């Protein structure tokens, strides 16, 4: 079975001319279907760049990234947008829409897949909120939810469309210890239940023991690969 992500010889630069600076050097990376991979490294090591390249949010400059069997290098913007619909994003900040209730926020993750009847989308959203333990908060606006609850809504929004790959960027950075553990367990549990592949960027050591594989990035190079299974 093909890997969900296969990155080969990935180089990336920021800026141009005099200030052009290389951020990634010959990065190779594979994500197996259903795996839970943690990408570690100090700030500025290029973790986020890797994530945005795999997440189709930046164009690939040099090297090859195959995502779900499709080459991202040279792909059109429309193609990248279509691929993004098969991914789930979780950000450091929850990035919920403050004018929408928890249910409506999660519905946005359903409606992006096409015009779904409103009742169906709503049902799916309420189900997803139930899975993250927020059945009693479905009609709350984000302003009335705690930090951990908001991040759980964001997890529900990312997972409601049954994505093939979940990309999470320091999802626990803004959370206390218990909420952080909750959110990671949730990702891990839902991942193994649905066969979802997860790539999680963090420098939070509390998360490491849940990973199948830990990649360490330093100065744009992968310096360590540690398999836990």
């Amino acid at each position, binding site marked *: 079975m093909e890997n969900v992500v296969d990155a080969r010889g990935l180089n990336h630069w920021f800026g141009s001319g005099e200030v052009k600076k290389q951020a990634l050097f010959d990065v190779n990376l594979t994500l197996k279907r259903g795996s839970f991979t943690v990408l570690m490294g100090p700030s500025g090591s290029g973790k*986020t760049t890797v*994530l*945005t390249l795999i*997440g189709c*949010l*930046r164009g690939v400059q040099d090297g090859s990234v195959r995502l779900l069997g499709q080459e991202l290098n040279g792909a059109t913007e*429309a193609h990248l*947008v*279509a*691929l*993004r*619909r098969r*991914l789930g*994003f979780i*950000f*450091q900040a929850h*990035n919920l*829409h*403050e*004018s*929408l209730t928890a249910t*409506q926020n999660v*519905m*946005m*993750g359903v*409606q*992006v897949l096409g*015009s779904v009847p*409103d009742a169906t989308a709503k049902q799916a959203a309420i189900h997803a909120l139930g899975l993250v333990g927020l059945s009693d908060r479905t009609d709350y606006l984000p302003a009335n939810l705690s930090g951990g609850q908001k991040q759980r809504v964001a997890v529900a*929004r990312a997972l409601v469309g049954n994505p093939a790959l979940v990309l999470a*960027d320091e999802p626990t950075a803004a959370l206390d210890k218990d909420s952080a553990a909750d959110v990671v367990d949730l990702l891990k549990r839902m991942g193994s239940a649905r066969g979802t592949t997860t790539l999680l960027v963090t420098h939070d050591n509390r998360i490491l023991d849940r990973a199948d594989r830990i990649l360490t990035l330093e100065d744009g190079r992968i310096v360590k690969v540690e398999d836990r299974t």
Partner: protein
Amino acid sequence: MSRLLQALFGRLPIGWLQLTHNRTRFAAALAGVAFANVLVFVQLGIMNSMGAATLRPYDFFQADIMISAGDANALADGGNVARQWLLQAMADPDVTDGMGLFLANVPWDRGEKDISLTTFGVDPAKPGFIAPEIGGDLNLLQVQDAAILDRLARGLGKEEAAAIRPQTPLAFETQGSTLTAYATFAGGGGFGGDGYMLVSDQTFLSLFPARSSAAPDHILLQLRPGVPVQSVVARLKTLISDPSLRIRSYPDAAQEDLRYQQTRRPTGIIFGFGVLIGVLVGLVIVYQVLSTDVADHLREYATFKAMGYGPQFFLSVVFEEALVLGIMGFIPGLVVGTTILTLMGRITTLPLAMTPSMAASVFLGTIVFSAVSGAIATRRLAAADPADLF
């Protein structure tokens, strides 16, 4: 509203939820749109009333053809016409009758304030030229210094006007002579005067000794019924040997007067600009609201972009907002605009009123210009880059 938008756009009404999230700002935005609507309504109302007021005096007479001086762009404009052309026009077999029409403004000292009456001098022996709405009292004008007064004239009290009857006439002094009003008709204040008055041509000439009976301001002609007016107009143009004269059908003369007032006179141009400025103000207000809203939600939009929403989705959100602002701002705009026009009409006695066609065209304009503003505001969306979220 929320459900309607949901059905219309086939998705969550994000624009509506976003706009109504901050009630104060939403109210301010609606007030802005309503204000622009009121501005346009008032300017349009004045423009329309100017049109109605321009056409109003033409209703007082019945004629098929009007002959005026070459520089007579409006009823009260330009030089006079020699009476000899009336006699010459009568030579045409299809012309049945003709009358010279005299016209000038007469000041009337009303104590606290002077009013100005646009006074028509007519031939009392030719009642067929006077519209039936003036009434059958034309014989009253046979008396020297008799007048039929506009009971809607500005500055004339309602009761005072209602008391004017042949048995209880109202005498007043003007131009050094004493006129006696024996009857009234419903004229209405215009832009050129505060009201109207009808007198006989003899009385008119005694009020204005410098004017001559041989030179009325306009010549009105009546034709045999059923005769094509334009062909008679064409014939008269060759028959009358003064090429500088304007010979037009009576309705054409009225329309040309209207066009002249709206496009060539400062008042018409000023109110036309007023409408334009109202539209621009509305455009800027809606653009400002929408672009601020886009800027405030760049993070959310970037998130939606990352999730895989395409440019059409964002366009439709902004259009949804434009639609909401346009529709909901129009309602208070219509209410306030109608109130202001009614009040202004009462004070000025100009025919100022909200008409359904005015409301409909302003509504359509509001929707169109809101959408245009929305389209301009979406340019800011380019700044929502999902790669910046990490």
